[in-house]
């Protein structure tokens, strides 16, 4: 049986990937951030998942505005790296797992989640920055990746509660796949940030800390955070945090927090990461 053994929450700020690609990771600005991710990277190297389910959002790269899927599951063999306007990141192509992804589609749709099936898609920094942060710079990624692209660009994004329920359904889908696989699910984006308008640069450490705490202690509160609360208290782009609730929903009732790290800033963003191990 395939099992979701843990979840990783992490920001996906593009400047982080660019710092690594351009050899700036040892500059004073970036040192504290990469140091903070070291234990997470070590955890990942020891855990060696077979499959990663990457919950992220596309930033007007794979999808323009002709079609905007709320939940798009990547079912392809591989996903090429998008040129976001400054050339594609020099990272390995992402290998998918079409058999498992197709099984997930069947299970999720029958479980009343109207997924969009994505058979061709380029992936952007939303997916590749977390890969770099947790897996470093290998020649090929050490596991297969099933991307789940969530619309958090055009309001309204799916609610936190809907996202949590989707996570629960993902767990069910994975556990009904008859192959021994270790699966780690990522929820990416956030934490507090706003990158538009005169209010850009907003950071709310108190909100972020409470969110990190809530992931293991009070999910009932987290799923009730409304879009307006994210907007008012944590910035227009903090709505990305609903993707962390998909990850959390996929871990079952009880989790053990294995690691967390929080740092301000990366460019305009408050960066957070957390590792939650699922307890059977």
């Amino acid at each position: 049986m395939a099992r979701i053994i843990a979840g990783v929450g992490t920001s996906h700020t593009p400047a982080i990937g660019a710092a690594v690609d351009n050899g700036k990771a040892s500059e004073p600005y970036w040192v504290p951030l990469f140091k903070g991710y070291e234990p997470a990277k070590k955890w990942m190297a020891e855990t060696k998942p077979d499959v990663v389910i990457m919950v992220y959002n596309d930033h007007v790269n794979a999808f323009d505005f002709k079609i905007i899927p709320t939940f798009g599951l990547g079912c392809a063999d591989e996903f090429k790296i998008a040129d976001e306007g400054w050339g594609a990141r020099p990272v390995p192509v992402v290998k998918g797992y079409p058999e498992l992804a197709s099984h997930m589609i069947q299970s999720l749709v029958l479980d009343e989640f109207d997924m969009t099936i994505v058979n061709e898609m380029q992936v952007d920094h939303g997916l590749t920055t977390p890969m770099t942060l947790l897996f470093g710079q290998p020649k090929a990624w050490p596991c297969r990746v099933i991307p789940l692209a969530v619309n958090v660009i055009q309001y309204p994004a799916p609610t936190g509660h809907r996202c949590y329920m989707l996570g629960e359904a993902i767990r069910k889908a994975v556990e009904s796949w008859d192959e021994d696989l270790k699966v780690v699910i990522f929820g990416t984006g956030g934490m507090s940030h706003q990158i538009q308008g005169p209010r850009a640069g907003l950071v709310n450490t108190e909100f972020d800390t409470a969110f990190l705490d809530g992931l293991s202690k009070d999910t009932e509160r987290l799923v009730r955070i409304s879009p307006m609360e994210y907007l008012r208290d944590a910035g227009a782009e903090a709505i990305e945090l609903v993707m962390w609730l998909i990850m959390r929903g996929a871990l079952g009732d009880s989790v053990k927090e294995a690691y967390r790290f929080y740092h301000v800033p990366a460019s305009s963003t408050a960066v957070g990461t957390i590792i939650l191990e699922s307890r059977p």
Partner: protein
Amino acid sequence: MRNSDSRGKIWAALRARLRIDGKDDGMTQKIEDYEDIPGTWVFDAQRARIGYRLNEFLYSLMKAENRKEFLADERSYTMKFGMTDEQREAVLNRHWNKLLELGGVSYALAKLAFTDGKSYQFMASQMTGMAEKDYVAMMLAGGRSPDGWRSKSERKGKD
């Protein structure tokens, strides 16, 4: 949280919480609420509708040949997308906040900044009216506090 028995309860609580005027029985967030956030143009369905052609223009800048064509003759290139004159003028003047107001989404606007050889951080600082170095310093000092920025009434008299 248990899947089946908690679904109904939480859903009801969430609906109640999102209800704004006591009459609205659904999950719909009204545009007025979004408009209450100061210094922000929320990219909701109505703004997306207004900005559709503008954003398709910005999306076209993902291709190197289009960036080249645009930079060679900005006026002619922008004519091809069916934008309003106001949107075109805002593009030509790099009037970032106006572009947000007219339905541009920040990630698409970034492609215009990249075409100019500028960074996202540069564009964000322009939106705030700060010099880039001051913006960077603010972020290094922990970012902008939400205090005074939660609503238009809280913001009143502060700008």
